[in-house]
């Protein structure tokens, strides 16, 4: 059974058709990269899979770990093991990071029939993760993403991912806005999640990230469809030749 199976997915925002029949299968242990120019539907695909309001799925199906993903509430998707890394992580002043981490981990444990995590064990785990993402402990007591730099926000996304250990991480342009040091830290974080029982989908605009996190498959999304798939060499070709030639060749 595949971890994620998207079949002929069509989606609209209002009258505007964004996704026009996406087919994608992700198996456990695989890393997929979805690349594409602006406006190709990358973020819409992420949001539809995340369960955000405002998108209408008109056709197609999505199976996640044997479940009908599109029928599930956003929080249930998360608790079933899907993590969406935001392109623009939301600033929530007033809600401390540590509360978000604790609430989300406990929600996941509850969904799996486990009791609340012991505070001591939780703090130990969180502190280790903070250290590994090269962040300061003080950040735990700041508002979620409030006043964070672009790089701090993305590191925070990866930190949450490593704490929640999702079956499938869907990372929407996690590499955008990162300097080279932050990119390395974020990439190391993603590589730590890599494993035979997990899948990772990297949605990205640039090839750069893929030098640090090597994908098994690369897909090119254009006008709401995957028009070309290949291995990691496709990303390099894209970097060398630009979108235009590949789009021309594919159309």
């Amino acid at each position, binding site marked *: 059974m595949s971890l994620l199976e998207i079949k002929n997915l069509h989606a609209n925002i209002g009258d505007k058709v964004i996704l026009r029949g996406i087919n994608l299968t992700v198996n456990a242990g695989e890393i997929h990269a979805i690349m594409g120019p602006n406006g190709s539907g990358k973020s819409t695909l992420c949001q539809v899979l*995340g369960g955000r309001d405002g998108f209408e799925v008109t056709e197609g199906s999505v199976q996640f770990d044997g479940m009908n993903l599109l029928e599930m509430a956003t929080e249930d998707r998360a608790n079933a093991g899907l993590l969406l890394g935001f392109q623009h992580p939301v600033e929530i002043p*007033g*809600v401390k990071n540590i509360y978000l981490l604790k609430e989300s981990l406990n929600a996941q444990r509850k*969904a799996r029939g486990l009791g609340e995590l012991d505070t001591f064990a939780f703090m130990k785990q969180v502190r280790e993760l903070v250290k590994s993402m090269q962040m300061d402990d003080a950040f735990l007591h700041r508002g979620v993403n409030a006043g964070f730099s672009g790089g701090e926000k993305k590191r925070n996304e990866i930190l949450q991912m490593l704490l929640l250990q999702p079956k499938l991480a869907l990372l929407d342009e996690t590499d955008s806005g990162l300097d080279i040091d932050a990119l390395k830290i974020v990439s190391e974080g993603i590589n730590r999640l890599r494993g035979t029982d997990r899948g990772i989908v990297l949605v990205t605009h640039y090839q750069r990230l893929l030098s640090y996190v090597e994908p098994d498959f690369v897909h090119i999304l254009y006008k709401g469809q995957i028009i070309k798939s290949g291995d990691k060499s496709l990303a390099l070709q894209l970097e060398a030749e630009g979108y235009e030639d590949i789009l021309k060749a594919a159309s």
Partner: protein
Amino acid sequence: MSAALPRAIEPVELPEWLRAALSQPVTASLAPTGVQTLACEQILSWGLPTARDEEWRWTNLRPIARLSATSTIDNTASPKTPATDLTAFVPNAWVIRCNGGQLQPLPQNLPAGITITPLTEASEADCAAAFAPRAQGRNDALVALNTALAGDGFVLDIAAHADIQAPILIDWHDTPHEANHSHTRLLIRLGAHSKATLIEATPSSCSNTPLSTYWRNAVSVIEQGANSQLNHINLGLGDYQRLLTDRSFVHLERDARYRSIHIQLGGQLTRHEIDVNISAPGAHCDLLGLMMPRGKQVMDTHTRITHGAPHTTSNEHYLIIADDAGRGIFKGRILVAQDAQKIEAYQNSRNLLLSNTAEIDTKPELEIYADDVKCSHGATIGRLDDEAIYYLQSRGISAANARKLLVTGFAQEIIDALPYPELIAHLSELIGAGA
């Protein structure tokens, strides 16, 4: 700022039971006779304030007029939930219990530097000081009423140079009482260089009798000597049916610092007023508040800060979180006198509407006669951020819990100013439960 439609303006007649009380107040009031007689005449001729009176534009006192003649608090019913004992959250407090306006026996062995004298035993001079603030017009009618009927109260003196570490907790525990209303008067005096924390709490004692109604109309006079420091915490919890009107007159001498933290989570109608007179250089006041009206609750805060001397500063920060058909009102007046140069005054009113039927009215009112001042004010009214709710949901947190986290987070900047971690945790829970 307000989406309010004009409200019908009708006079609020003095209810019969209040007229009756005013016809025989001499035995009840502790005010000096002449002062009391004048106040009595004033309130009888004015009646209760209405929406026609500028300071009462948004708050209708009709629930007071509708009170029945006697208290409907049922003392015999066994409590469904035990009264919140705030001493559990405020360690080492000196507790003063006031029941139905009647001062209960004073705590024994008060530390050196604290003197508490019931007004019934206070000197003429102290009584005169306690009743010094006079009603100037119908906007102040409740002060006149309090002066006419003040049946209990006390003088709290903090000696010069005393540093009182443990908080003094006044527990307004208004349960068994025959009348439906009480009028309390406090005189709080801090000697020069002294420091104290005063907590006034209206605990959730009547949750066993949801239909009970009771009105407390309080006036406090706070006089702070040079370089003294008072933390004044006001906690209004629980008790949905409670009516509470209170007004504090604060007078600050040179370098004195007054800090008020007011948290209102309960009450059918509450009106909280603070008048701060900053009369000498170097003095400062911080006024912080959070009101959370739900159901059909109306919660109102009016502040008036007078910068009467140069080099004085003030800072105000008020939050309202209104849900259901609740209404929250904040009006903050800052007056800078002509010769009061080098003033800094900052006012911030942030508000959260949780439903389409809730209402928030907020109004800054700056009156500045000096030319070398820094005054700023800001007011915002918003809703919960859908993006933030979605983000939290995407981390596995249910929509309801996301809402709780956001509402508690919004309130946090006021709650966190409290110096007691256990109290902060308790209030956060109450706020989360109400969100």
